[in-house]
């Protein structure tokens, strides 16, 4: 079930009414919310909805057992073994669905081919027969939508219980609602247990003020970013060029890369905004997931502004346990590289995602070293030079990130290579067939400008609507929604991050 569809609008209308009508019956309300979330997920596949339910049961049971062992004064090793087991189970599930095909088709078989060729024809035929057996089997593995997101949520829960940073949920129902909550189930934000489990336990009260105006602005803003901006940039610029880069000129490839940078921001932040706004209407609060990422002047700052819930997850559950920056500069660089390699792999099972992660890890290490050295030998720019330095940094980092998007979106090494060769060759455009146009430039600029809405800036500027009658706000919202739908294309394109 996709957000910007009539089916979801009807679904949400029913859930809103049921959720608030049952406010006086907490247990029934929690069961209703879980049923709604499982229906939302099961709309795509009821089998995977059952798998999600099973994951909730197993992870919560493990967390309760860890807490029980702690209260009983059991040795730390027993808790550590249990943690190891549940982490392995979660990662095993993710690995099976997401990485089995990559492991066989892109790692194992390519490695074995030259080895078997050297061993002789018998070995080659054995390998051929193995491939004939395995390829049909792995082609039947379907990636459950959102598995990367809810697996990371489950992992953060069990690790935080192990670290004693959060108690286990009071009941299985509360944890299941945390894990399966439909607004953020399939594409985040990755909400921590310490944030959402207490909200699920207490449930929003009927008497509490609902941030409905802020929710409306988030949802409509997200709808605009996705329907008008992201879809246009994808269909007119990014998709054609990334599909066949050889036929486009250098300037057209550059425009397509800029377009993709804006498309993925608008697409993903739109989903996060709609998720946050939808949750607000049900009385739940999520943290922000984006904060004008292309305003960053360093790559480190970019990762504090882009997909904040994932970058903070990687920091807290990977980078810091590896040692963070506490074990010397050399080890810090290694930790950065490993963290971002795995971060790249989280996005997808392909060499291009690994390269994308490696690029970010290496650049962050280099940036840390260079900026550290510069800080010791050069005085930071002051006065009138500081804004210039900031803007130069922003332009530079935007292009560094755009370069990395070529790897991310390229899909395979051949396409990424073709795009880079096209940029390097810089073949001139033919005026009548170039992709450059006023509309294209305007869409890219508008998409970049929507970053100004992040961090509730749009809400801050629109507080004057607070005192307007609710029916007038609703009607005005419907008018804005109509304009957005009229400007968008027919049909609904799925959100990019659904594939992760």
């Amino acid at each position, binding site marked *: 079930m996709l957000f910007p569809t009539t089916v979801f609008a009807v679904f949400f209308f029913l859930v809103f009414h049921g959720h608030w009508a049952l406010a006086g019956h907490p247990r029934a309300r929690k069961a209703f919310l879980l049923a709604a979330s499982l229906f939302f997920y099961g709309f795509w596949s009821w089998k995977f909805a059952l798998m999600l339910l099973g994951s909730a049961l197993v992870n919560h049971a493990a967390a309760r057992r860890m807490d029980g062992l702690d209260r009983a004064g059991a040795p730390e090793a027993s808790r550590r073994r249990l943690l190891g087991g549940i982490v392995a189970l979660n990662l095993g599930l993710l690995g099976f669905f997401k990485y089995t095909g990559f492991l066989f088709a892109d790692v194992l078989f390519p490695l074995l081919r030259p080895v078997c060729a050297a061993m002789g024809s018998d070995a080659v035929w054995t390998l051929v027969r193995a491939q004939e057996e395995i390829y049909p089997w792995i082609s039947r593995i379907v990636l459950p939508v959102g598995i990367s997101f809810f697996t990371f949520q489950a992992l953060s829960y069990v690790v935080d219980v192990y670290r004693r940073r959060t108690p286990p949920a009071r009941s299985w129902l509360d944890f299941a609602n945390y894990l399966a909550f439909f607004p953020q189930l399939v594409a985040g934000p990755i909400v921590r247990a310490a944030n959402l489990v207490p909200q699920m336990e207490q449930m929003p009260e009927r008497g509490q003020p609902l941030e409905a105006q802020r929710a409306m602005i988030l949802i409509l803003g997200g709808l605009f970013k996705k329907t008008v901006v992201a879809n246009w940039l994808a269909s007119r610029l990014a998709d054609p060029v990334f599909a066949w880069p050889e036929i486009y000129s250098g300037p057209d490839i550059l425009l397509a890369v800029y377009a993709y940078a804006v498309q993925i921001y608008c697409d993903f932040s739109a989903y996060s905004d709609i998720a946050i706004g939808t949750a607000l209407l049900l009385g739940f609060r999520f943290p922000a997931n984006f904060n004008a990422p292309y305003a960053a002047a360093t790559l480190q700052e970019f990762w504090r502004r882009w997909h904040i819930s994932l970058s903070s997850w990687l920091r807290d559950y990977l980078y810091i346990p590896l040692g963070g920056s506490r074990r010397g500069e050399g080890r810090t660089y290694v930790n950065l590289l490993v963290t971002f390699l795995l971060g790249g792999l989280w996005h997808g099972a392909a060499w291009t995602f690994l390269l994308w992660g490696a690029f970010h890890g290496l650049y962050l290490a280099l940036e840390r070293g260079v900026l550290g050295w510069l800080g010791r030998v050069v005085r930071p720019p002051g006065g009138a030079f500081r804004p210039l330095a*900031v803007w130069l940094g922003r332009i530079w980092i935007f292009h560094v990130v755009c370069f990395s998007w070529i790897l991310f979106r390229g899909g395979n090494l051949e396409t990424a290579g073709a795009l880079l060769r096209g940029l390097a060759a810089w073949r001139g455009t033919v005026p009548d067939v170039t992709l450059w146009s006023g509309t294209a430039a305007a869409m890219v600029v508008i998409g970049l400008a929507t970053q100004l809405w992040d*961090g509730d800036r749009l809400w801050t500027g629109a507080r004057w609507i607070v005192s307007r009658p609710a029916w007038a706000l609703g009607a005005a919202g419907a008018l804005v929604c109509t304009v957005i739908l009229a400007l968008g294309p027919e049909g609904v394109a799925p959100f990019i991050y659904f594939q992760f």
Partner: protein
Amino acid sequence: MKTKLKSAGHPAGAPPPGLSLGRAWRGLLAFYLVALALNAVSLHRNNEQMPYGPLRSFWVAVSAPAARIAAATGLDRPREFLTRTIGDSLNR
């Protein structure tokens, strides 16, 4: 180097004001009714393009009356106008 753009998240200080549940419900209802009125014809057209089957029959039956009313009262015209003037030229 940090830039001056303020942090994301909720504005500092007092929590943002909100609506009572009753007011929020009225706002949501107004949203759905006005959105349906203005977009019923387009919605009905989309439903008619669904693959044939019980689901299509259901949604077409649901959207047909609203589409008839919207077409008769001219409520579909603002969206048609916007689609013809800006939407089609953007997405053709």
